[in-house]
């Protein structure tokens, strides 16, 4: 314990130097900015800023880059709430209740609770990394392909749970999501799958392209369509920041979201994407009246947002202690470190204690800065909603187009958001929800990879999923969740049949 304090002391000594504080602030500011811009993700930005960091000392450079990463996570929820565009896979669920809250004139409260929840989660996750970072990595090694497959299946069950309308339609959406994810070059054989001969499909569909189309463009089309009773935020905007009752309502979800997000973030196989979905499902199950979810329930913002930020922090654990980057941004951090002559891996903690503890301390400071940056911004964001929609949507469209173009510098991606936008519009019209599709898409690719890998390693024996204890437990939990989710639907449809008869 005294070690922990000594280490944190060292960390704060490093992070509180004037230069590092300034860099941390810069990172958080840039991160918030790009998070708010739809499409422009932390990957493109960090890659572009890498050369600038050449002149800095490595600790400062990494503090700034880390700031961009979690700053973008913060900012991403802003667009999800305000204009229904999830910038990252992790903010998909925030759109469900967050944007509903905005439509009801409670955008400020949603943004505020997201910021406060994220700050709390960030604080806890930072402490967790500091205290348990090293021992926790053992958890990462327990998870083999079979366990990850089980985890992904559990994630798909969450998608059923968070569906609002017809379960049948939700299942179809999930399947379509996985099918879309399988488009492109097959990982194992290098064969083209379902690309119809289009070169731009060989690398599959980018998440941002799909999300921007299904959520962003489709939302615009739907709003245009109902020009008389337009659904954008027209209600009077109430109080700007959450009040005491809001906070009391959100406290439980924030705590649970933090716990769920922290644990999933530690897994190097990009388990962090599941955090917000898991948190949402848990809140929906625990709620006294689950029907409020999807209609602007504050718990549906507080839980996932906390999980999201906690996962973003703890995903530094596999990077710093194992040298394994759990996602593309972390892979970029590896690059940043190697350029600065620091090779992330088991040795970082002992060889570069300044860097390791300095970064951890800076994460907490960064979270504090984000809270300070974001709370005053809430007012500005909310006032943006007063811009007439006929001017707002061309602007949103242009930001989307530029953002999407900047990911791969391919015009076909821009055309694809149009196509997906049209699909999304039709889906909404026919009563399908796009969220389960997106979740199926995110998990589908990973799920297939893990399934095939697990079966290769077990030489084709599917029993491997039940023989390994962790995987068996995860499957059991999924089964229970699925039955619990299906029961009311089955009962209801039987009731309907009876009442009709």
């Amino acid at each position, binding site marked *: 314990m005294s070690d922990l304090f000594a280490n944190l002391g060292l960390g704060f000594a490093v992070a509180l130097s004037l230069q590092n504080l300034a860099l941390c602030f810069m990172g958080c500011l840039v991160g918030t900015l790009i998070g708010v811009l739809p499409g422009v993700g932390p990957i493109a930005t960090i890659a572009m800023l890498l*050369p600038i960091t050449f002149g800095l000392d490595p600790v400062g450079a990494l503090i700034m880059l880390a700031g961009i990463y979690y700053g973008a996570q913060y900012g991403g929820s802003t667009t999800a709430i305000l204009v229904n565009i999830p910038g990252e896979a992790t903010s998909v669920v925030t759109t469900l209740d967050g944007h509903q809250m905005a439509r009801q004139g409670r955008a400020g409260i949603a943004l505020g609770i997201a910021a406060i929840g994220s700050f709390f989660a960030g604080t806890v996750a930072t402490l967790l990394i500091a205290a348990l970072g090293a021992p926790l990595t053992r958890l990462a090694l327990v998870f083999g392909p079979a366990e990850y497959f089980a985890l992904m299946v559990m994630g798909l069950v969450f998608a059923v749970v968070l569906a609002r309308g017809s379960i049948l339609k939700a299942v179809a959406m999930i399947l379509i999501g996985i099918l879309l994810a399988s488009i492109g*070059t097959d990982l194992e054989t290098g064969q083209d799958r379902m690309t119809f001969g289009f070169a731009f499909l060989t690398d599959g569909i980018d998440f941002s392209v799909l999300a921007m189309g299904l959520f962003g463009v489709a939302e615009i089309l739907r709003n245009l369509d109902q020009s008389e009773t337009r659904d954008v935020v027209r209600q009077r905007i109430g109080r700007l920041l959450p009040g005491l009752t809001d906070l009391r309502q959100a406290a439980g979800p924030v705590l649970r979201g933090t716990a769920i997000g922290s644990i999933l973030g530690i897994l190097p196989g990009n388990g962090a994407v599941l955090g917000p979905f898991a948190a949402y499902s848990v809140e929906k199950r625990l709620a006294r009246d689950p029907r409020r979810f999807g209609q602007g329930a504050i718990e549906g913002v507080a839980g996932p947002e906390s999980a999201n930020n906690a996962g973003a922090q703890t995903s530094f654990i596999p990077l710093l202690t194992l040298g394994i*980057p759990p996602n593309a941004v972390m892979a*970029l951090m590896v690059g940043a470190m190697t350029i600065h002559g620091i090779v992330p891996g088991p040795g970082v903690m002992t060889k570069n204690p300044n860097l390791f503890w300095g970064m951890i301390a800076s994460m907490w400071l960064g979270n504090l800065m984000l809270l300070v940056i974001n709370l005053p911004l809430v007012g500005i964001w909310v006032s943006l909603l007063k811009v007439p929609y006929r001017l707002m949507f061309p602007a949103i469209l242009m930001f989307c187009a530029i953002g999407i173009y900047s990911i791969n*510098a391919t015009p076909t991606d821009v055309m694809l958001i149009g196509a997906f936008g049209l699909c999304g519009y039709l889906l909404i019209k026919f009563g399908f929800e796009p969220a389960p599709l997106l979740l199926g898409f995110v998990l589908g690719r990973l799920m297939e990879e893990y399934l095939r890998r697990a079966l290769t390693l077990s030489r084709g024996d599917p029993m491997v999923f039940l023989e390994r204890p962790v995987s068996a437990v995860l499957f059991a939990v999924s089964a229970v969740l699925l039955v619990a989710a299906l029961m009311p639907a089955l009962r209801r449809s039987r009731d309907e049949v009876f009442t009709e008869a």
Partner: protein
Amino acid sequence: MKDATTRTVRSLCLALTATLGLAGHARADAFPQRPITMVVPFAAGGPTDVIARIVAEHMSRSLGQQVVIENVTGAGGTTGITRASQAAPDGYTVMMGHMGTHGAAPALFKGLRYDPAKSFDPIGLAAGTPIVIVARKDFAAPDLKAFIAAVKSGGTSINQAHAGVGSVSHSTGILFDAKTGAKPTLVVYRGTGPALNDLMAGQVDFMTDQIVNVAPQITGGTIKAYAIATPERSTVLPDVPTTKEAGLDDYEVSAWNAVFAPKGLPKEVGAKLEAALGKALEDETTRKRILDLGGTVPGSGERGPAALQRLVESEVARWTPVLRAAADGTP
């Protein structure tokens, strides 16, 4: 009010036409006049990207214009190289090719729209990153010879990891199997990170990969290294024997990175780029950065356009039969 704005607009227009007029005279000036784009066909943060950024940083300084890295990923790097090969050969678009895109690709990708030996004007070799043979830390064999024997006798019960078709670990791994006669089960990963994770956890038995990716885990003791596939030992891993020392003669591979331009580059432009690359590789800090990663910096005799052209031709000749045979062997 109205007058004022019209006046502003008019003077702005005037300023614009003035600059446009000036431009006509400046064209004959020497290369480079504007930023140069260096296409890196792999994701930012990977070994090739890191080398490209280190080199580009110094080249920007000596050329007096920014060398901007553009990551265009996909299809084992061939997407980016294809796009860059179609750019105008004016020196403002160059690319960082590597062992895969300019050696293994013709054998792996049937519809490849460029020829590594013919579609480019080579500028020069930038760096090499040696290949290391690594295994899970509790693999019983004490040295490389015993390891090869164990892998051979284990047959398909041995699991070999690689980072996807077209990756360095894929082609070098297949070369290893071909040279030793081993027939392990191949387990595919999306990228080196997850493959290493499973290697550390003992889910798979071994793999071959670039030193940059595996050195920290080797020094940290979470995986073990049997040999490094270079003529000399690396300063980063001084305890790891070379393949020759360990008794495997025919396995020396390095994932080299080299700068190419689209075919048809004006001579003076090519010479300038070559000189800038050379200067970067002579620079102490640049060299040290590459060496610290475990990479190798080619000597001045082995990095020029002619030497690179020879390297590309010999690499294509080396990889094609091995990879074709492996592809035919699996259903």
